[in-house]
């Protein structure tokens, strides 16, 4: 009897949520657990979608760095040698960061770099438009050559929204883990 009491005491302690950890991270019921799994699955899908976009964009640019250097030069913001250096470097950075999202390796670093790069590209596109330059952004190689300015902007903002959502989620999870 005393042993049974002790067992019950242990069970109730185990089920009690840790004060610093959200309840959703430790679901008690099957419904909560499956809802959590669906949530995790959707976040993972978003990881793959964003990673796929950057791998596609990165590979297109990596196989034709000459064209990409020319696209960067069209913005008339940077000297030619800098455009060349970026044309060689940026596609690989995008590919590595995208792989970071897929394999959850250096995850938050990858998200921050991709967010920063999309912000820079968006600002450069807006600046080019404001100066009346009719240019191709070069973001997706020749595939984006005939995109209109609103299409560029909408695509970039959509990707940025996905990245920021993932970054917010990852930062929150990291804080929770650190607080336990």
């Amino acid at each position: 009897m005393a042993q049974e009491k002790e067992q019950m005491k242990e069970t109730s302690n185990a089920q009690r949520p840790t004060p610093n950890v959200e309840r959703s991270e430790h679901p008690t019921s099957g419904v909560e657990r499956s809802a959590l799994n669906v949530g995790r699955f959707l976040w993972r899908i978003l990881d793959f979608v964003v990673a796929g976009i950057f791998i596609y964009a990165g590979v297109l640019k990596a196989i034709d760095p000459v064209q990409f250097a020319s696209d960067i030069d069209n913005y008339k913001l940077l000297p030619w040698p800098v455009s060349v250096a970026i044309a060689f470097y940026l596609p690989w950075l995008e590919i590595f960061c995208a792989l970071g999202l897929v394999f959850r390796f250096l995850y938050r670093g990858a998200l921050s770099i991709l967010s920063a790069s999309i912000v820079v590209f968006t600002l450069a596109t807006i600046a080019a438009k404001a100066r009346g330059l009719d240019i191709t952004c070069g973001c997706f190689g020749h595939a984006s050559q005939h995109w209109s300015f609103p299409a560029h902007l909408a695509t970039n903002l959509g990707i940025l929204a996905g990245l920021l959502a993932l970054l917010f989620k990852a930062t929150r999870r990291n804080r929770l883990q650190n607080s336990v």
Partner: protein
Amino acid sequence: MKSSLVAQAVILAAFALLPAAGEAIYFRDKISWRSAIAPSEMVTVEQAREWGNTAIWVDARPDDDFANDHVPGAISLNEDRWNELLPQFLAAWTPGKKTVVYCSSLSCNASREVAHRLRKDAQLSDVFVLEGGWEAWLKKKNR
């Protein structure tokens, strides 16, 4: 991976350097670090001189600069008056002739743009950009 966000970003940035350096070596003959023109589309003053009468010179600088001085026999063709000047150039051009386009200096873009338009709009082949432009010509004209 519990390293800080900045450390993670630095590691990724460092990883990307390696394939980028490899690609830069692989493409070294297809892209120039000094100018936006591919090495195969550039010509030096010495090379262009050797072509003699088989080359036609095109001055892509503004009209005032052309009026001041230009390469002997050069034809003015700039983007400001493209539609007006192109027929004059085409009248002087004959098939088989190489076209050498120049602008002020190494850093100017006009020769590159004009050469690009001659290839694209006028469908000409054998269009070259003079390395160093008018400045290089001046330095070497008396040698």
